């Protein structure tokens, strides 16, 4: 297993190497958590993410109103991107509810007496919740990046092949991020372990950085308070993805990520309110 020539990547199953891929994805033997969240924070993060849902849906709603008025597809895609962000956070809130209800059930029945069926149903809801959260969030960021790149504007022909290919890779990454796998990067002198969900954060961080770059360019071009707020908001959102990346090291990173993410969306809301007050 020791690698001396470059990096060797081993994908290892945490619990058992004999379970088939399909069984691994669909059948669960215990409540497996993809995100490392301190138990006391469940509920609190659902409230904070509820605020994110409201902000995302407000922006999506206004962009859709503009689309209905002007019939320009860039507004439709922008609206769709924020709608997907809102829905992805709703899916995440749903998973919190699954955890909370599971914890209450555990306390009521006694941890040692949890029936296997109940656990499996909760686990199934939890995994599908996160599958939708990851899938919808990555699709939203992809759309937002394409809109900010102005590739979806009316003047440009819609490159469906490119969009479908990007969506295909998003889907693959969503499936991979939901697996119960961990990657071990054997460097010969040291090994780095990395949960598969980390690839979701890495991808969202990469997309956020590219979106931030576009909005920073937009600020440098326009130099208004509202464009500054939007650029700052996306810097914060990219930073939150970077913090989430270290979630598996310590649960404190998860709390920090949620708070920075919320501040990012509130900054976006401030820019939106500034626009409406003009």
């Amino acid at each position, binding site marked *: 297993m020791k690698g001396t020539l470059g990096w060797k990547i081993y994908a290892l199953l945490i619990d058992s190497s004999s379970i088939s891929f399909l069984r691994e994805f669909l059948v669960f033997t215990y409540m497996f958590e993809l995100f490392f969240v301190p138990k006391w924070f469940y509920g609190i993060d659902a409230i904070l993410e509820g605020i994110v849902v409201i902000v995302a849906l407000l922006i999506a709603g206004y962009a859709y109103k503009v689309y209905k008025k002007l019939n320009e597809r860039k507004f439709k895609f922008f609206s769709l991107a924020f709608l997907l962000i809102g829905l992805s956070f709703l899916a995440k809130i749903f998973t919190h509810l699954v955890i909370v209800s599971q914890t209450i059930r555990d306390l009521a029945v006694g941890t040692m007496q949890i029936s296997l069926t109940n656990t499996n149903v909760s686990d199934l809801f939890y995994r599908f919740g996160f599958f939708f959260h990851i899938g919808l969030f990555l699709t939203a960021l992809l759309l937002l990046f394409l809109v900010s790149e102005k590739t979806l504007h009316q003047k440009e022909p819609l490159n469906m092949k490119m969009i479908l290919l990007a969506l295909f890779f998003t889907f693959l990454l969503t499936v991979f991020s939901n697996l119960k796998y961990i990657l071990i990067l054997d460097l010969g002198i040291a090994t780095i372990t990395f949960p598969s969900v980390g690839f979701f954060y890495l991808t969202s961080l990469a997309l956020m950085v590219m979106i931030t770059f576009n909005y920073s360019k937009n600020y440098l071009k326009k130099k208004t308070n509202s464009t500054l707020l939007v650029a700052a908001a996306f810097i914060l959102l990219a930073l939150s993805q970077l913090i989430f990346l270290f979630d598996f090291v310590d649960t404190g990173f998860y709390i920090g990520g949620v708070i920075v993410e919320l501040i990012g969306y509130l900054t976006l809301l401030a820019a939106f309110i500034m626009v409406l007050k*003009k």
Partner: protein
Amino acid sequence: MNSRRSKLELVFDILVAIQNKGGKIKPTHLMYKSNLSHKLLSEYLDELKAKELVREEPTDKSRVVLITDKGLNFLAEMRKVKEFTETFGL
């Protein structure tokens, strides 16, 4: 330059040109102010008249284009849309 302006920007420029002239402007002046060809301006004015955002009134020598109350409200809304478009880099 005109071909690079979106429909939103063109309509916005036409309405702003009328508003800046006190809500009433001659079509020839509007053509220069909005930097549009006669053909393109006529097309846009027909659309704006159909939507009751502007109306035309005959004068002694020719005619003038007037912005309606609906047009003024639309312009205020358009300013917000323009700000939204610029803010979110659309």
